[in-house]
Each structure stands twice: as structure tokens, then as C-alpha cells.
């Protein structure tokens, strides 16, 4: 009984705390709640749409217009990432949903349909999410929606960046015709390569 009373008291206190916190966060411009990412892990968004959104994000993140060949190579790897059932899949889906949410705010039907300039601004907004701030640490503890929001930034974004850095697309952009895993002739190193396109 004593414990129950205590927990009710704590709930009231927590409610007041949440309300104050939400007001304070709203005042400094932090969205509450970051609804589009909340529950994204279980969202049944069509996989091709999520893939396309993540591909567009990768292109904008690295300032690249992806050729059809690049897009095909990357799509295969993104599909591999999404097929891996676990937290990472949910984080990637959350990112895709959030990108579309930000796109809608800019009047685009989807992130993939935004002009490059708008995509760049959205990428900038995502990349500036401060996962190390005190607010991030606090909110991650308090709300599942915020946990998904911050995870999207510190889990999905670096994973997609890793995937791009190790992809054919990254090396093709540098003028390379081979990359890790593609066989060639070691004697190639005896001659200069091609300049950066």
C-alpha cells in the first residue's frame, strides 16, 4: 500500500515534470513528441518506398546525384540492411518516415520528390540533431518517441554513411573502376590512376 501511494505521488510529480519539460522544450524549439518516428519500428511502410527514401538520403548526405548504376548498387545494399531484422531495421524505417515528415512540412509529397535544395536543407536538419546533449539523454530515457528519434540519428545515419563509403558508388565517384571485392590485376599500382572526375 505504501508503495502504491508512493508511485501515485511519483506519477503526479512526473506528470507535472513532463508538462513543464514539454513547455520548456517547445519554448526552445524541440518538437514534442517527434511523432513521425514514434513506433516506426513496427510500421509497415512499403519496403520499396523506404528504400527509395534512404537512397535519396544517401545521395543528399554525400552531395551526390546518384547514377542509375550507383542507385542500383546501393539499393541492393540498403535492401540487405532492411532485411536484417533487428533494431537497425526499425531505425532505418524511422529515418525514412522522418524524412518524409520533414518533406511534407516543406510542401513536398515525399522526401524523394523534393527538389535537391530542399533535400539538402532536410539533411542538414537531420544531421544537426544533437544526440549528445543533456536534453537528448534525458528525453531518450523518458519517451519512446524520442528514443526512436535520437536512435535514428546515431544508429541509422552512421550506418547508411558506412554503407555508402564501402560501396561501388563512392569509388566510382572518384574515377575508380574497381573497389573492395572486385578482382583485377595487382600490376595496376605500377601506373598512375585516373584523376578525380
Amino acid at each position, binding site marked *: 500500500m505504501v508503495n502504491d501511494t508512493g508511485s501515485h505521488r511519483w506519477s503526479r510529480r512526473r506528470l507535472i515534470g513532463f508538462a513543464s519539460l514539454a513547455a520548456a522544450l517547445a519554448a526552445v524549439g524541440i518538437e514534442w513528441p517527434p511523432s513521425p518516428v514514434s513506433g516506426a519500428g513496427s510500421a509497415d511502410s512499403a519496403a520499396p518506398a523506404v528504400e527509395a527514401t534512404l537512397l535519396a538520403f544517401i545521395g543528399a548526405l554525400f552531395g551526390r546525384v546518384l547514377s542509375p548504376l550507383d542507385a542500383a548498387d546501393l539499393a541492393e545494399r540498403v535492401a540487405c540492411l532492411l532485411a536484417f531484422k533487428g533494431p537497425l531495421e526499425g531505425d532505418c524505417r524511422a529515418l525514412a518516415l522522418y524524412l518524409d515528415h520533414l518533406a511534407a512540412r516543406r510542401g513536398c509529397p515525399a522526401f524523394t520528390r523534393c527538389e535537391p535544395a530542399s533535400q539538402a536543407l532536410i539533411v542538414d536538419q537531420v544531421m544537426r540533431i544533437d544526440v549528445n546533449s543533456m536534453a537528448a539523454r534525458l528525453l531518450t530515457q523518458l519517451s519512446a518517441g524520442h528514443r526512436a528519434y535520437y536512435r535514428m540519428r546515431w544508429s541509422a545515419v552512421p550506418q547508411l554513411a558506412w554503407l555508402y563509403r564501402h560501396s561501388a558508388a563512392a569509388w566510382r565517384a*572518384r574515377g*575508380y573502376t*574497381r573497389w573492395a571485392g572486385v*578482382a*583485377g590485376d*595487382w600490376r595496376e599500382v605500377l601506373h598512375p590512376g585516373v584523376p578525380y572526375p
Partner: protein
Amino acid sequence: MSAAQRYDLVIVGAGLVGGLLAAAATRRGRRVALIEAGQKFRFEDRPRQLQHHQVFGGAVWPYENTERDRYTDSSASSIGVRYALESHRLKGVGGSTLHWGGRINRLMPADFTSASLYGTGMNWPITYAELEPYYSDAEWELGVSGTHHPSHPARSRDFPNPGFPMSVDDAFWVPIAERFGATVYPTSWAINSRPYAGRSECVAMAACKVCPSGARYSADIHVAAAEHSGHCDLFTNTVARRIDMNGDGSVKSIQVSSLQGEGREVHGTHYVIAAHAVESARLLLLSNCGNHSDQVGRNLMEHVYIDAGGYLPSRRFYPRRGGFEGLESLSYYDGPDRRERGGIKLEFTFERDPLDDMEGRRIWGKAMAEHDREDFGHWIGLGSETEHQPNPHSRVSLDPAERDLFGDPVPHIHLAFNDIDRRTQRRAREVAGELLSAAGVKTVVQDPLSVHSFASHHMGTCRMADDPDQGVVDRNCRVHGVSNLYVAGGSVFPTAGAVQPSLTIAALALRLADHLLPT
């Protein structure tokens, strides 16, 4: 394995030593039991492993088993950083040669007599000349591609494969080194420059840590040969837990357990512990074996890597076309000042990916594309492999509290440096700075000396010495006081030198094979 089965040779560890010994023994008609804590990876899976790594990151070789591989570490209290053992070893058939780079070097003759020559370290009970024929044999077993250079120690046989020539990028360093009176040479590799021993020549997949073509040597090749002979029983996912002794001071059996906890005994005539410098020492300590002079686990050595580099906007290089960079220098290895500091080997690199700067420099979008265009191929780097002196306070011991999945104490790592080590690291940093500045680098990027990176070379812990009070094994790798127990691998090194230890490990294994298994 039946309870009655008795082998000529029982080997704990199916890595470089285990593979070479098992292959040598079975060629000579001996029956071998090879006990390996890890799994057997399939060669055909290597492309899939690479692709998985390229998508997800993490280990290319998923060897870890958290409960089996637990350890504790207190290195931060002495050298300021934790030692991450899990990223520096690989448990599985083939051992650490599954993920090694494949650089091949012999120790220098002076490394065997540093106490006499310089008053540092400790003399080996054997000389370079005694080991030299086995160095050559090891190069032929592994299929080394190399070109002899005047700075290399003397050799009795040529390399089995021609060396990889100096690349167009490597040639940049030649005149700069000459200005300092230094010489550079193309690195020797355990990578085929031509088809050799049934393996393909290098096809430049730029993925040496997994080498999907098999051109880079890994010890699973020798394990497979031993198995193929029909004289070798390989027991994977089987952990050696104790060495059982007879009353006469000889080994009776090795107690092993499957990962599910099913235990049994393996009996043999001779026993070789080749389970890596950490686990070999741990097994002896767990068995209270060979530690009469409190030497087991002591003198744990690593090679500290001193990294430096910088941008050179005026010159374009073409990194990662072959997958391995191939220039080294031994000009700062030896010399009169080695009384004050240890050996230093220089390795020249051109790799740094500007795309890695995203989070650190907070650049993305068009700015990142521009950054990559401006910086890619303009980085030159110098990695210095530095000698770590034997030091009794640098050691592996049994953790008094933590237990593994069987309830056995886990290994506790405590790396320590002495003043000579710090002077070696400082000198390596100076040399790198001088050479990079001379190359035209305006801003040399170097970590402070308090930030250590390591070469993943574990040595010491069961060192070789004629005097039983000074070491664990004798000149033939036999544990002092035990008639049929041997330790092999980097763990028996009395000193570490400043070169990759694998060829010396292989040479010692072949020498042990001759000692144990006369033809």
C-alpha cells in the same frame, strides 16, 4: 575421439603454429589431435563475409563468443588506455592469420642478442643463424613474395615468389628517404605475386583482411592439409581447460570441453600449447604448470604503432587499388642509439578516407562532396612499429573474480611500458614528423603519445630461456621441468623486436617439428 585414442601429438590451437605442426607431423606419418576453441570458417563464405562487413560494419570474421572469450584488463592504469583484446585476436581454425595483413619480416640478428649488444631486453637462447634455415622454410611454406634488400638480414635461400615491385605511389618516398640517409624497400608479403602452392596470384581485391581469392596465406590451409592426410583429428569449438600431470612430471592428458560443457581427456605422447600468448599462459596458470619461477604470464609484449600523416595538395596518389601498401624502412631499427631506445620499423601509407570526416568535422551534402574531391588521394602517412621491451609488470594473470562459461578464471591483461619504450615511441614520433615535413606536409597530424594504437602482436608470457629461473620454456620450446610439454608461438619470444612476428612464429614451429618429429 575415443577414450582409448592416443595421439603422437596433441596440439592446442589451430592457428599458424598448430597448422604448420599438424601438417608437418602428418606428412611424417604421425597421428595428431588438433584442439581449437573456435569454429571452422568455410572458404566459400569469404565473399559473403566481406559483403556483410561492407553493409553492416563490425568484424569481418564473426569469431566472438562472449562467454567463452571473456577477459579483464587494467592497462589503463599503467599506459592510459584499455587493451581491447577482442579486436586483436581471432579464435578459429587458422587463428589470427585469417585476418592478418600478411606482412612478412624476419627479426634482425641483433634482436636475438640485445642484452649483450645494447644492455637492453634479454638474449634469446638461440641465434639468428640457428633459426635462419627455418625462416627460409617458413617462407616457402607460407608462399612469401619478396625481394632481398641490403637492410634485410642474411638469407640462405631466395624467396619462393618474386616480390611485388614498388608502386608508383611508393616511389615518391625514395628521394625523401635518401635525404636522411635512409633506404626503403618493397615489403615482403605472404601474398602470392604468382600462382603458388595451388593458390591463385593476388587479384587485388583490396580486401586483404578476408582475401576472397585465397592469394594471401592463412593457416587453415595447413590445417586442411593435415586433415586431408587422414592422420589428423580436428576438434573445433573445443576448449582446452586443464593440463593433467602424471606423478613423474610428465603430462598425462589435456582436459577439454565442448562449448556445451561436455568434457573429455585427450591423450598423447607429446603436447604442444599454441593457443596465443594470452590463452597459452592462461592454460599453464590454470593448470599450475611450468610456473616454478613465477614467469608464466610475465613479459607480455605488443608492438605500439605510432601513426602520423598529413595532406600534400601538390601531389596526387592512388590508394586502395591493390589493397596493400608496400613500402618499409629498417633504417631506424638498429644502431648505437639502441642502447637508449628500442627498434623502429617504418611503414609508408597513402590511405585516409575523407568520407570518414563526416561526424568529426561535421560536413555533409555538397560540402562533403567538395571535401572528398579536394582531399582524396592527397594523404601520406607513416606508421612506425615500435619495440616493446620485456617487462615483468606487463603480464597476463588469472582474474581473481571473473569466470568464463565453464567457471574458470578469465585472463587478466595488464600492459606496461618502461622508460625505454617511451623513448622508442617518442623517437618514432620525431622520425615521422621529420620525414613528413621533408615530404612537404605543412601540418603533420599526430596523436599525442598518450594515445596508443597497437599492431595486434602478442608476445612473451612463456618466454624461452636456458635458465629455468628466467623463463618458462627451454631453447627447444619444452616447458622447463616437464618432459613432454611444449609451448609454441609468439608467447615464447624473449624480446619482440619491431617487426611482424608471424614469420618467426612459423620458423619456430618448423624448428619444433624437427625437434619433436625427427624423420
